[in-house]
């Protein structure tokens, strides 16, 4: 439940980041996640994978980069620009 709330927040951040670039295909959402972030990485990845299947993300892949500390942020997203 907690991880799902966070995953929803990630989707919101990603949508805002895409902004007016739409329509474009999100390929990857890259996250930095600390060992003390209070998040179970496997559960978080599961939730993200499920949510990122839907439009406007187009089956984007979550990439979790593990770190020390409590960081929890969306680092960058990779998009395929539509012609």
């Amino acid at each position, binding site marked *: 439940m907690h991880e799902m709330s966070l995953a929803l927040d990630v989707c919101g951040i990603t949508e805002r980041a895409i902004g007016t670039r739409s329509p474009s295909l999100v390929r990857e959402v890259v996250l930095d996640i600390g060992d003390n972030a209070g998040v179970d990485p496997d559960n978080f990845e599961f939730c993200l994978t499920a949510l990122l299947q839907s439009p406007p993300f187009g089956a984007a892949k979550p990439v979790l980069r593990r770190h020390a500390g409590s960081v929890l942020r969306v680092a960058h997203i990779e998009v395929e620009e539509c*012609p």
Partner: protein
Amino acid sequence: MPISIIDVRERVMSKNDKIADTIRLRLGRTKTPAFNLISSPGAGKTLLLERTLEALNTEMEIAVVTGDCQTQNDADRLARHTGRLVQAVITNGGCHLDASQIDKALDAIDLEYTDLLLIENVGNLVCPAGWDLGEDSKIVLFSVTEGEDKPLKYPNAFRNASYVIFTKLDLLPHVDFDMNLALNNARAVNRQLRFFFTSAKSGQGMRDWFEFLNLRVNGALVPAT
């Protein structure tokens, strides 16, 4: 097709944090201190609040927001001890309160006539630790019927808190709880923690808690964050 990288570097929960900042501004305008009580289920949050309302509701205007997965039982219990509206937030299975729920709950509370806001979070030592509700401080309740290693098992809760209230001290003679070990474990996680030792049932140590709230409400105590 061309691939591009969009640099984001945005903290997850930043939306929650922004709402928490607006709550802090709302509370700051009326100089209303707010405490976010978190604990395992059954540690005694509701009883502590019942005794607090009984003892202090003639001295100060206390507003309470309670969070539970289901039922408004806690809010109903607390409402018997105050003439004020007790706001019940039912999370429908959600494991914590978030800032938007508190922001909405505050819409029904007249902060101009509120000296103190107490938030009883959902019983859970994991998720509530990570969510800023715009409070001055988080307070962890730690009952003597739990293991002394709770701070080591749930470090984020104790790391993000400013105070720990030990509860159910009346049961201490009947349980194998090593208070010194519990204190050492808590300090190992967060050296800044300050402690209260209470039994809401017998009244032991409650005066210190009430005195703390009085000092904070009267502005004689700087908030610990």
